[in-house]
C-alpha cells in the first residue's frame, strides 16, 4: 500500500501498482477472490453435509407427493393400451386392453407386485385391493386353457430345456450348460430371428428370463417357464407362419403350429369378468386410467379433501372431509396458542425489561429453565397435572370449587393441547419481546404522562407501537413452531386436540399411505416456509437469539 500511495512520476501517469508490480485493481480483485474462495471452502463441508442429510430428504419427500410410477410400472402394456380409451363411449375397454392386462397382471402376480398395486389403488377407490388379490389368485384360469392344450400336445412344452433352446441364442445356451452353482448366471440373449417370428412369446419369455436370472437366480435350463408364455405362443402361432423356421426344436414348434388352429380359446375380457365382475365396471377402469401417468396430483387433491374424477377434481362429500377440518383446526389452535402466548408473555417481558438488571436476571432464570428443560419432561408434567386424578383437579376438589364426581376434563382434548403448548412455547415469545422492550426508553412513557396522557393512552399510543416488532417476531416464531408440533398433541391431545402432524405420522407408520403423508407434509412445509420468509424479512435470520 505504501508503495502505491506514495506518488512517483510513473505512477501518476499509469494505473496504480501494487508492491509486486501488478496493477492495484487487479491485485485487489485477486485478493478478494482468494478470500471468497477461502470462505466458501470453510462453508463447503457443512453445506454439503446439510444438503445431503437434510435438504435431499426434504426434496425426496416433495417428490414422493406427486410420484405415481407404480401403476405404469406394474401395468405398462395396459396403461399404454388404455390411453385412447374414452370412458364416456363405453363402460369398459375392448379386448386389446384386456389382453394387455392379462400379460401385465400375470407377470405382476408372478413377481408379487400386484398386491402393492392393489394397496396403492385402494387409496383412491375402496375395493381395488381385494380385486387385485382375487385376480392374482385366479389369473391362472385364463392361461391354463392354452397351457393344458400345449401340454397335451407335447409334454416338452412344460419342460425348461426345450423352451430355453427355442428362445435362447445358441452361445447363451452353451454358456448356460457350462454354468455351475455359485457362478454368476450369464445374461439372457434371444435367439437370432425369433423376435421377428414369435414377437409376443419372445417378449414374455424375455421378461421371465430376466426375472429368473436376476431375482430368483436360478438356471433357465431347470425352471419351467410361466404359464403365460403358452398364451403368447398361441397368439403368435395363430398370426405367424413358422414353416421357414429351422432352428432348435423346429419339429415341436411346427407340430404345435399345425395344431393351434383347432385349440379351444377363451376371450381375455370374458376371462377377467369371470374372475371378478368388477373388471367390467367403468369405475375400476377410470381409476386405472386416471392414475396411469407417472406423476399425479391425486395425493394433493386428497390432502385438501378433493377427489380426482373423470370430470376433473371435485370436492368430496361433507362427511368425508377430514383434512380440511384438520388444517383448519391446526391453524385455529396455533392462533389461539400464539395469542395466549402474547397475552401471558407481554406482561412478563415488560416487567423483565423495566426491572433493574440484577433482579431481571434472576427472574429470567424462571423463563429460561422451562426453555432448557426437556420437552418430554414438560409434556409429562402437564399430563400428570391435567389428568382427572391429577394435581390440578385434586386441588380444585380440595378447595371445594369442583365436586369430586364432576372433575374437569382437561386432557385428551383441545384445552389440554392449548394449555400445555402455551406453556412450552411461552419462552419463545418472552425472549424476543424482552429484547425489543429493552430498547424502548422508559422516559417516553413518563413524557407522555407529563403531557397529559392517561395511563392507558400512554401505553397504547406510545409504548405499545414500539413493542410491535417484538410481538411480530415472537408471534411468527411461536406460530411456526406450533403448527408443526407433534409430540405434545400426541400425548395430551386425545382425538380432538391433534394437529396435522399427527395425521402425517399416522399415514407413515400405520396406514402406510406415504404419498398422502408426503402431500400433507408438503402443504405444511409450504406454510412454514412462507412464514419463515416473512420472519426473515421482518427480523432477519441472523438476528435469531438463543437464551
Amino acid at each position, binding site marked *: 500500500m505504501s508503495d502505491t500511495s506514495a506518488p512517483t512520476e510513473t505512477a501518476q501517469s499509469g494505473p496504480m501498482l501494487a508492491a509486486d508490480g501488478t496493477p492495484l485493481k487487479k491485485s485487489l480483485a485477486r485478493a478478494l477472490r482468494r478470500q471468497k474462495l477461502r470462505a*466458501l471452502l470453510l462453508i463447503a463441508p457443512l*453445506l454439503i453435509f446439510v444438503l445431503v442429510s*437434510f435438504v435431499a430428504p426434504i426434496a425426496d419427500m416433495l417428490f414422493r407427493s406427486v410420484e405415481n410410477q407404480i401403476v405404469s410400472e406394474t401395468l405398462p402394456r395396459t396403461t399404454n393400451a388404455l390411453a385412447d380409451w374414452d370412458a364416456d363411449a363405453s363402460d369398459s375397454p375392448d379386448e386389446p386392453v384386456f389382453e394387455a392386462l392379462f400379460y401385465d397382471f400375470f407377470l405382476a402376480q408372478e413377481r408379487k407386485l400386484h398386491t402393492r398395486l392393489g394397496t396403492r389403488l385402494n387409496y383412491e377407490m375402496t375395493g381395488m385391493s381385494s380385486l387385485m388379490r382375487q385376480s392374482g389368485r385366479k389369473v391362472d384360469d385364463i392361461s391354463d386353457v392354452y397351457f393344458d392344450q400345449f401340454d397335451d400336445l407335447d409334454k416338452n412344452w412344460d419342460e425348461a430345456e426345450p423352451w430355453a433352446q427355442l428362445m435362447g441364442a445358441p452361445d447363451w445356451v452353451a454358456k448356460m450348460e457350462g454354468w455351475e452353482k455359485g457362478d454368476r448366471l450369464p445374461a439372457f440373449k434371444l435367439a437370432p430371428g425369433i423376435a421377428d417370428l414369435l414377437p409376443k412369446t419372445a417378449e414374455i419369455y424375455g421378461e421371465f428370463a430376466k426375472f429368473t436370472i436376476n431375482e430368483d437366480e436360478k438356471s433357465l435350463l431347470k425352471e419351467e417357464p410361466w404359464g403365460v408364455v403358452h398364451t403368447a405362443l398361441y397368439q403368435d402361432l395363430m398370426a405367424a407362419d413358422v414353416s421357414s423356421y429351422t432352428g432348435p426344436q423346429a419339429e415341436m414348434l411346427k407340430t404345435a403350429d399345425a395344431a393351434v388352429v383347432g385349440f379351444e380359446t377363451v376371450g381375455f375380457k370374458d376371462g377377467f369378468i369371470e374372475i371378478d365382475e368388477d373388471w367390467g365396471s367403468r369405475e375400476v377402469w377410470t381409476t386405472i386410467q386416471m392414475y396411469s401417468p407417472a406423476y399425479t396430483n391425486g395425493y394433493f387433491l386428497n390432502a385438501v379433501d378433493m377427489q380426482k374424477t373423470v370430470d376433473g377434481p371435485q370436492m368430496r362429500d361433507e362427511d368425508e372431509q377430514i383434512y380440511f377440518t384438520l388444517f383448519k383446526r391446526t391453524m385455529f389452535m396455533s392462533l389461539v396458542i400464539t395469542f395466549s402466548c402474547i397475552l401471558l408473555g407481554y406482561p412478563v417481558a415488560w416487567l423483565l425489561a423495566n426491572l433493574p*438488571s440484577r433482579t431481571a436476571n434472576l427472574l429470567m432464570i424462571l423463563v429460561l429453565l422451562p426453555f432448557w428443560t426437556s420437552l*418430554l419432561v414438560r409434556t409429562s408434567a402437564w399430563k400428570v397435572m391435567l389428568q382427572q386424578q*391429577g394435581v390440578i383437579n385434586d386441588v380444585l376438589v380440595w378447595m371445594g370449587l369442583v365436586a369430586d364426581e364432576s372433575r374437569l376434563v382437561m386432557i385428551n382434548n383441545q384445552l389440554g393441547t392449548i394449555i400445555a403448548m402455551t406453556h412450552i412455547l*411461552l419462552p419463545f415469545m418472552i425472549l424476543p419481546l424482552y429484547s425489543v422492550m429493552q430498547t424502548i426508553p422508559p422516559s417516553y412513557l413518563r413524557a407522555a404522562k407529563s403531557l397529559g396522557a392517561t395511563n392507558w393512552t400512554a401505553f397504547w399510543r406510545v409504548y405499545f407501537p414500539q413493542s410491535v416488532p417484538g410481538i411480530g417476531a415472537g408471534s411468527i416464531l411461536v406460530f411456526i413452531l406450533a403448527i408443526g408440533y407433534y409430540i405434545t398433541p400426541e*400425548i395430551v391431545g386425545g382425538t380432538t386436540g391433534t394437529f396435522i402432524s399427527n395425521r402425517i*405420522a399416522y399415514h407413515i*407408520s400405520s396406514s402406510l399411505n406415504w404419498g398422502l403423508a408426503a402431500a400433507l407434509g408438503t402443504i405444511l412445509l409450504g406454510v412454514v416456509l412462507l412464514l419463515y420468509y416473512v420472519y426473515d424479512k421482518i427480523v432477519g435470520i441472523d438476528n435469531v437469539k438463543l437464551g
Partner: protein
Amino acid sequence: MTPIYDKPLSLTLPTLALAGAIFGFFIDAGLGTTFVAVPLVALICAALAYVALNVMPKQREREMRWASIILFAVGGFLVAGLSGLIVAGLFGWFLGWFIYWIGRGRYRGPLPPYLTSGQVLWHYTFRVIVGAILVFLITPIIVVMPLSFNAEDFFTFTPEMLRLDPEGYSLKHYRDFLTNPEWTNAVKNSLIIAPIATILSVSLGTLAAIGLSQSHVPGRRAIMAILISPMIVPLIISATGMYFFYSKIGIVGTLPGVILAHAVLGIPFVIITVTATLVGFDRSLTRAAANMGAGPITTFFRVQMPLILPGVISGGLFAFITSFDEVVVVIFIGSAKLQTLPWQMFTGLREQISPTILAAATILVGISICLLATVEMLRRRSERLRGMSPS
C-alpha cells in the same frame, strides 16, 4: 425517594383481615369445615396488626415478626401436624412482613411520589399477575420433582405425602430407572448418540460460521437460510423426509443414520451462537498474529479459538440438548435397539404409563439446570472477553 409515613388503621386492618380470610379459606378447604377458619383467621390477623402497629413500640418489630411466625406455626401444628406447622409458619412469616409493609407505608418507598393510589394499586396488582404467570411457567417442573419420590404408583400427591409422612416417600422409581434394562439401555444410547452428533455439528458448524463471518461471501443469505432451515422445518416433516431418504440409502435403524440426523438438527444452534460470538471478534487480532509470523493454523488455535470458545461451547451445549431431547426423528429412523431416553419416555407416556418417567424427568431437570448455568456463565465470560459489560 418517597417519604414513608404510617397508614391509617382504616386501610391496614381491613387489608390484613382480607389476607387472613384468604388463608382461612384454604384452611377450611383442607379441614373440610365450612366458614369456621375464615372469620377466625381474619380476626387474628387484624388483631395482630393492631398490636404490632399501635401497642408495641416501633423498635420491637423483630420480636413481633418472630411472634407471628411462632403463633401460626404452633397453631398449624395443633390443627394439622407437621405439614400444618410448615404451611402456617410460612404464612406467619409472610404476615409479619406484610403487616409492617402495609401499616408503615413501606410499599410507597420504591415508587415515585407523584403516583396516585390507583396507580400504586395497579403497580402491585401487575406484579402479582406477572408472578402468577411465572408460577405457571415453573410449576409443572416443580411439581414433577416431589411426585417422583412417591411411594405409590400414582401420579398425584397421596395423603401420606401431604402429611410429610416418610412412609409416603420412596426412591423406588429411581431404583427402577437405574436398574431396569429398558431405561439403562435408553440412557446408554442417548449418551452415545448425543456426544457424537454434537462433535460432528460443532466441528463442521464452527468452520462454516467462521467462513460465513468473512466479509465477502457470495450468497451469504441463501447459505444462511439453508443452514438454519433444520431448526425451522417442522420436525415431523424432517422425520418423514429422512425416513424416506435414509431408507433408500439403507441407513434407517442404524446408529450412523440417527447420528447424522441429530447432527443436522443441531447445526443451526451452533451456527447461530458462533456467528453471534464472531460479530464481536476483532479481526485485527488475527492480522496482528499473522504479522508476527504465525501461520493460519497457529492463528486459529492460539488466537481466534480461545476467544470464540465460549460461543462454541454454548453452541455445542445447544446441539447436545437438541440431540439429547430429540424424539420425533428418532422414532421414525431409529430401531428398537436404538431407543433413546426421550423415546422411552414417549412410549412410557403413550402406553404403559409408569411413574419411573417422573424419576427420569427429575434427573433431566437436574441436567438442564446444570446446562443452563453453564451457558449463562459462558455468555457472561464471552461478553467480558469481548469487552462488553455483562448485563
